[in-house]
């Protein structure tokens, strides 16, 4: 059986450098494989020991559970320790991560958009091209916006009870109020 798929970990700020090299007389003599520190392990170390957050807070930032965060952090410490003791290089690359993107709002056409490329700064709205854009904090407003127009309904597979979908994110955890079985999204054929 294949292992369970890892969920994507959110990385807020990617590392400035690609890795570390040891120096000293012995460092160049042995050609050892570098230790591969993953992006998520770097981020775990940064949140936990540089930003001084506890594992619970840091796990929420990275979008993983607290035990998973602790495992990532433990693996980071173990890799760094082995690099220090054995005098190996550290290369920071790879990992199952995504980089969080910034969100903007355009005042002209009232659209929201994100910047998927962190290196480039966005100055104009990608839709209407106006420069009246401002940073937009994506928090609670997304929960209500746009959802009112959705015609999705939930249907109970056992008794056929129908209910409008209230919160899109949790549709597969809602139970039928009549027969207590888990409800499914109703198929829509009207278009």
């Amino acid at each position, binding site marked *: 059986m294949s292992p369970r798929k890892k969920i*994507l970990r*959110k990385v807020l700020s990617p590392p400035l450098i690609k890795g570390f090299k040891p120096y000293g007389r012995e460092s160049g003599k042995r050609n050892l494989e570098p230790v591969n520190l993953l992006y998520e392990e770097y981020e775990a170390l940064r949140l936990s020991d540089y930003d001084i957050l506890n594992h619970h807070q840091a796990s929420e930032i990275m*979008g993983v559970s607290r035990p998973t965060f602790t495992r990532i952090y433990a693996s980071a410490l173990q890799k760094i320790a082995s690099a220090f003791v054995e005098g190996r290089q550290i290369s920071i690359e790879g990992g199952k*991560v*995504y*980089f*969080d*993107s910034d969100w903007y709002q355009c005042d002209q*056409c*009232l*659209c*929201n*958009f*994100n*910047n*998927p*490329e962190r290196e480039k700064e966005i100055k*104009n709205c*990608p*839709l*209407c*091209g106006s420069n009246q854009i401002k940073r937009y904090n994506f928090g609670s407003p*997304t929960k209500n*916006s*746009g*959802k009112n*127009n*959705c015609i*999705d309904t939930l249907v109970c597979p056992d008794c056929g009870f129908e209910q409008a979908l209230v919160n*899109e*994110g949790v549709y*597969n955890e809602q139970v039928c109020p009549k027969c207590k079985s888990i409800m*499914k*999204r109703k*198929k*829509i*054929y009207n*278009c």
Partner: protein
Amino acid sequence: MKIAISSTGNSLDSPIDPRFGRCCYFVIYDTEDKTIDFIPNPNKNAEEKAGSASVQLMASKAISKIISGEFGLKIKSNLDSLKIQMIILKEPETKIKDIIEILNKTNY
């Protein structure tokens, strides 16, 4: 550059679909040769994983921007890692031809 717009119908007069994963049609507009393609969404009636299947469809067509009414929680991270820009347009009455007109005015 290719831009995808979620649409409720297969004509230029149809309004934008507020959903991304389960929209009826994807309109793919090429800003270079000004071609407009309508693709019926194969994941329209999917019970689950409609969003991620639609993201894969978009990635296979080399789309760089997606305009839709709303994006689901799960696919925001997928689109971020694929470096596809999301544009959320909150007005459900906007027609496809209006959006293409605005895109034409913007110089790319």
